[in-house]
């Protein structure tokens, strides 16, 4: 069997899902035998290579996440929403109950530790936050979801291993499968 190409991407999340991926420990070497873990994509029109499987952590929180996710969708055969933020926005989406200006002002203008007047960052090199955080499936077609905050490492390994061997994982076989 030809070696697969695998990408992992971090959008608006806490990196905990990637840490859980690392919690597969020594089995990362098994994954490396079956797949080349290629670079993660660069938006702004930069090429992400064609890949077989992409794991996406986090929600869509900004203009760049949005563009990037659409780009990933074009380049990957299987797109897996990894973790609750990707699946249903989770804690990252808690700001959706407020308007973005209030969220910014609380941190950059009114925080008790702030000096002076404060200012909301607006440099052109910074990404622009969207008014509302979205789960992946509101933006692109998602092929597979693996919930959890983060998903258990064994579950991640199982799902990955099945896809790498051209099988569709059976989530009812996964222990510790749950939201949160």
């Amino acid at each position: 069997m030809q070696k697969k190409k695998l990408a992992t991407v971090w959008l608006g999340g806490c990196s905990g899902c990637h840490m859980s991926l690392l919690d597969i420990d020594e089995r990362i070497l098994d994954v490396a035998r079956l797949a080349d873990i290629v670079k993660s994509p660069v938006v702004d029109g930069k090429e992400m290579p064609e890949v077989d499987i992409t794991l996406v952590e986090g929600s869509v929180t900004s203009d760049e996440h949005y563009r990037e996710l659409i780009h990933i969708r074009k380049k990957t055969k299987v797109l897996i929403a990894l973790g609750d933020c990707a699946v249903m926005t989770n804690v990252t989406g808690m700001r959706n109950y407020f308007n973005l200006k209030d969220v910014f002002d609380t941190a950059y203008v009114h925080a008790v530790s702030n000096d002076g007047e404060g200012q909301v960052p607006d440099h052109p090199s910074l990404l622009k936050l969207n008014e509302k955080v979205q789960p992946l499936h509101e933006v692109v077609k998602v092929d597979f979801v693996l919930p959890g905050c983060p998903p258990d490492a064994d579950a991640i390994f199982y799902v990955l291993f099945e896809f790498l061997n051209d099988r569709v994982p059976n989530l009812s076989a996964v222990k510790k499968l749950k939201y949160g």
Partner: protein
Amino acid sequence: MDKRKIFISPVTRIEGHANITIELDDRGEVSDALFHVNEFRGFEKFCEGRMYTEMPTITPRICGICPTSHTLASVKACEMIQGIQPPYTANLLRRLMHIGQNLSSHALSFFHLSAPDFLLGYDSDPASRNILGIAERYPDIALRGIRLRKFGQELSERITGKKIHIMGIVPGGMAFPLTEENRKALLHWIPEAIETVQLGLNIIRKFHEENGEMVSSFANSPTMYLGTVGPGGEHELYDGRLRFMNQDGIILQDQVMPADYLQYIAERSVNWSYLKYPYYKPFGYDNGIYRVGPLARLNVCTRMKTPLAQKEFEVFKQLNGGRPVHGTFYYHYARLIEALGDVEDAEIILRDPQVTSRHIQHNGRWNYEEGIGSSEAPRGTLFHHYRTDKTGKLVGVNLLIATGQNNPSMNRSVLEVARQYVKGDQISEGMLNRVESAIRCYDPCLSCSTHALGQMPMRVQVIDSRGQLLRQVERG
């Protein structure tokens, strides 16, 4: 003025969530650097209106690499609101989990992210300069690094059933006791873990010997330091008071209650970064730059708590004749000395006869309107500050995160490296690596997770003042 700019973009998204602009003056010399941090999630606002007791489970989601430190700062703030203290055994279990997180984070930082540079060389083939590249050339080292991180994660899993975003630390104590079976299983790891940290120390020593000049001159301008210490000034991660030290090693403030943090720390919002710029308040924004994290903790503390770490600490102290060690590169060394202390300390706690006691929780209820808690994350001191109404609903949340406090000096380190390695618009692959490693020394949460499997993708553009592209170097 023809102000040319170099953009280094360790692409905001995938792993960096940060990028850099290096500005050149009209003679082509580096005049400034802006370190852009591109992540903002808004916890301070969206936690308002929730019950304070929810915070220990919400706030770990700030960072998947240091969730336990957030939980600990959070439960301490809750315990201040309740006016209670956890039982002895609960403190032991919290310490164990905290040590576990520190250890797994340090193992990741050293073996997965930094060792590839040390063992394979800064200018080696980027495609294999990662943990998998090490696995090919030095399988034993890669495996040991992976297993050291695993031990750290297991310290949490065997106490509360989860490795990341643990649920068992609650206001007043712990939700689950440690079983005898799990205690034994954890003790089993100790000898291997000590050996692995020693192996790491050997790698770093060898690198220091062979690259002495680079190591000691690497981003080494002096700053102040902040860290937590115990009652006797000893190294402390979980439960102590704050010590501020100036660049010459003079203690400016000692045994400061974390609850008084606002007297000593202020922060400024800047337009180029979502991360604010904290500073030591008595000295003001321009002169109050301080650092936190392993290097800071070793600089401020008087001694380590365990014998092997203390021996190494004495060597560390001699690096600058007893004065603070400023070279940013020594963060790596400091991290390993801490890791050594972590493993020794874990053994001491696991051998404490009370560690498996079932008296692990005190009951409390809302008593005070305000609570402030702090702890030492792998990357430095962090603060949680909650204000509530009389029903316990949050009306104000302020969070000071470890990496935030290193932000001003990360920015400065990048500028120093750029001054050393950028000449005109000449940009080499090696230069990118050094800018990258200037950031990586701090092991910032914002970029450490995903490039565990590779290097930072970067794009460097040299642009003149009219926005015209003069040169572009790319990798990733």
